[in-house]
């Protein structure tokens, strides 16, 4: 989320309730926007299609295919996203905006070709669906992979209204198109999905390409070991795998899943509650972004300015404690907001599920998932702080731990039986958050020592 703090701070600097509210709304939409809107739109498409697209299995096939597309594209590009975000921030910090465009197109070139070939091989090998379905899946996959890379830049762009409108436009187009393309069944819906995402991709790309002038079209500076941190690749992959590990386990356990299309399986039981639960973190996400990117980041900058400018040790220590307070307050506020949201959802969950036409059977799982995703939010906040402090090793440690724990505990929960479903995900995140807090404490305690004694 390079650059967002700066813009948010500008909005907050106007110092009025409306501007504060605006900052939170922007932050929420920007951080949660792409994927929350995706979930909502896809669900909307699904709901709209029920009763129109026959047989109903087709709708389910569409939803599952979409889920797989998101999961696989996020996992494949997760590493690149983290890795490339850092690359872009570093170059911008070095005041070299002219290297951004060629490198973005360079990484898109690599991502497109790799994603295309990977999808081609998998679709050839594992699927026996009609050609058109396979073609649409491949195209959707490549588009999403590129979209995740392009989205890195959104927070750095200044025209927020424009970004929000684009998002709104893209997803509306997707929903509207699906309405008209429904007669073509699964292919029609997949094409609507593609249309929406491709629109987003190319409109954003248009804006970004206009923003960064360059001297050439393509560059591969990000392949230069000296300019990048390879560990970030692994971190991104681990983190995204962690997020999806429990779902895949449920999808491919024959006990908890059923076959849907081609090799794709899904778990009705497990998927619905967790995707609903994800919608609950939007407010927390907004708070997190505003707190971490403004308060914390500001103290952070002042702290390191103080170090560089030769302030007294006492002053450096004072700034550090201010920064620590900012982190603590940020985390507390996330907890508060998320806590309220969770409590409210706990209270209204039975009615909500009823209203959505979902069986009460899902309630316990929904509850535990609500807690789980809240922990996930905290973990994201912690990871962000660690990224600021340049503790790449800790981030990698936490991400790797997350994926391992999630796999192990989810398997354990399946072994223990249905009343433990969802605990694997939640407990693994809880452990990671606890460990992250401990690491954070230690990192902050040792901050001056590390800064002075252990860096060059």
């Amino acid at each position: 989320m390079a650059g967002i703090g700066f813009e948010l701070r500008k909005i907050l600097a106007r110092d009025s309730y409306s501007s504060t509210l605006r900052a939170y709304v922007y932050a929420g939409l920007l951080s949660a926007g792409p994927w929350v809107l995706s979930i909502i739109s896809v669900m909307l498409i699904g709901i709209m299609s029920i009763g129109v697209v026959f047989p109903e299995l087709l709708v389910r096939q569409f939803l599952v295919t979409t889920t797989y597309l998101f999961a696989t594209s996020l996992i494949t590009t997760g590493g690149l996203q983290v890795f490339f975000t850092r690359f872009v921030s570093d170059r911008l910090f070095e005041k070299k905006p002219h290297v951004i465009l060629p490198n973005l197109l360079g990484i898109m070139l690599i991502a497109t070709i790799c994603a295309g070939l990977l999808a081609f091989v998998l679709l050839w090998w594992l699927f026996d669906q009609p050609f058109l379905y396979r073609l649409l899946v491949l195209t959707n996959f490549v588009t999403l992979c590129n979209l995740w890379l392009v989205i890195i830049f959104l927070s750095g762009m200044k025209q927020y209204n424009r970004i929000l409108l684009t998002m709104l436009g893209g997803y509306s187009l997707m929903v509207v198109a699906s309405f008209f393309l429904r007669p073509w069944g699964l292919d029609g819906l997949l094409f609507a999905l593609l249309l929406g995402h491709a629109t987003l991709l190319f409109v954003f790309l248009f804006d970004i390409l206009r923003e960064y002038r360059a001297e050439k079209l393509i560059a591969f500076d990000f392949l230069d070991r000296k300019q990048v941190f390879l560990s970030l690749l692994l971190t991104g992959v681990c983190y995204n795998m962690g997020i999806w590990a429990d779902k895949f386990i449920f999808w491919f356990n024959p006990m908890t899943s059923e076959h849907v299309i081609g090799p794709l399986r899904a778990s009705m039981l497990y998927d619905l509650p967790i995707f609903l639960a994800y919608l609950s973190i939007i407010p927390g996400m907004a708070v997190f972004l505003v707190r971490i990117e403004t308060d914390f980041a500001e103290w952070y900058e002042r702290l390191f300015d103080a170090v560089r400018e030769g302030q007294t040790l006492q002053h450096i220590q004072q700034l550090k404690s201010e920064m620590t307070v900012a982190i603590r307050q940020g985390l507390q506020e996330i907890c508060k907001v998320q806590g309220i949201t969770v409590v409210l959802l706990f209270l209204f969950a039975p009615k909500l599920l009823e209203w959505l036409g979902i069986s009460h059977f899902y309630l316990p799982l929904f509850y535990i998932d609500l807690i789980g995703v809240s922990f996930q939010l905290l973990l994201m906040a912690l990871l962000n702080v660690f990224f600021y402090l340049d503790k790449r090793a800790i981030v990698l440690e936490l991400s790797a731990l997350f994926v391992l724990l999630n796999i192990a505990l989810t398997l354990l929960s399946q072994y223990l039986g249905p009343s433990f479903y969802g605990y694997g995900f939640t407990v693994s995140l809880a452990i990671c958050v606890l460990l992250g807090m401990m690491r954070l404490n230690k990192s902050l305690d040792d901050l001056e020592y590390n800064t002075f004694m252990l860096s060059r």
Partner: protein
Amino acid sequence: MTDQNRSGPVAQHGDQADVCLLLEGTWPYVRGGVSGWINQIILGLPNVTFSVLFIGGQRESYGERHYVIPPNVKHIEEVFIEDAWQFAPRAEQAPSDGSVRDLANMYRYFHHPQKPDEITGDAVLGALASGQLTMQDVLRSRASWEAITEGYLNHCSDPSFINYFWTMRTMQSPMVMIAEAAARMPRARLLHAISTGYAGLAGCILKRRWQCKFILSEHGIYTKERKIDLAQASWIAENADEALNSSLDPSSGYIRSMWIRFFERIGLMVYRNADPIIALYDGNRQRQVLDGADPDRTRVIPNGIDLERWNALRQTRAEGIAPVVGLIGRVVPIKDVKTFIRAMRTIVSELPEMEGWIIGPEDEDIEYAAECHSLVASMGLEKNVRFLGFQKADEIIPRLGVMVLTSISEAQPLVILEAWCAGTPVVSSDVGSCRELIEGGTAEDRDLGQAGEVVAIADPQATASAVLRLLRNPERWQTAQTAGVARANRYYGEALMLERYRKLYSNSMGNL
């Protein structure tokens, strides 16, 4: 230069050396008085074998060796201070916790405002000599961090922590590096440092390791020279308040005083460990005592020259007073060649046939040399002042009427002794032992008469009139010549000096 003269040990094989020489920034890389003296000692005592620890600043600033390594030098080890600051093991290596006590002692001894006691010094030396204190400990350990920050919080009055921090590292890491280099030295039977400072510190460490005698010979006073450098050094960051401050506060910032204190403490440590402590003349000996040397250990051994050779040169002199005023020395700021040129302006105005010769290599400070040339041109002295470059002293000195030394700092310049033997009176600036040399030290010495004149530094008018007095008054010139010859022959023979050192060495080693 042959390969043999490039860096690297000369000979690792062979027996244990008798004397380990500890040199900082001199022989065999840099020409000059001290290096010449070292060469004289090594060549003059061919039966004694030497090993050498050379300590330099920047590796790049030492090109090729200017002295051929004599066969009785068995080993040369080199270490460069600046390398210590390049040391950067990555943080991934688990930082050792260091020895809390050692690091606290290190701070206490070298950086604490209060004068430290001997016990602390011994403890620090012990830690350095045993290799207990590593570079990791000093640069990475938590104990080091605590020692440094505690010092800052309790004593530092300069607000900038980062300046303080890096100053501490820049001071501490070379000490450890020198200790590590010392550990590589093959054992010798006796230590001889030619200055305090880093070389002296190496001496203290090695003395602790080898349990042998440690002799210190100082030409200049190292601590004093560092102080002068530091008082004006522009690389020490001044903090903003300092620059704005308009009061007549003489304090020059905590960082500067930390540096001065650091070199004072090293000096103190060396004086406490060395025995005997040798100065070239009594003025410096008193200074050493003032700086903490035990008076009982101090003694004076003046420089000496090869009397036979130089006395013979007097025969090659032409009759009468040659109309030539000469300055012998490298063309560098410390010799203050500009004052010589300005004095020549006045001399030539009075005696237009006079010539001024500047005899010495110009390659050491090319910029300064260029400034001197342009000064000559702008003074209209092109016809009278000549730059002769490096010349053999024994060929050129007999051709001078008066030799002038305008240096702003000297210890006991050999060139004055050489000039006397060759029959040339000397006008010198009042630095180092020059007054003692020219006017005589003891009463007995003074009876020999003035062998020239002493003038204030950077005073062209006074220099010119002193030269003119000698040149215009043959009688006065003659007396000065006689006094010079007599004094050099009585007190400053090389044989005398070498004999004193031979004795010193053999006493300290037991037998030789």
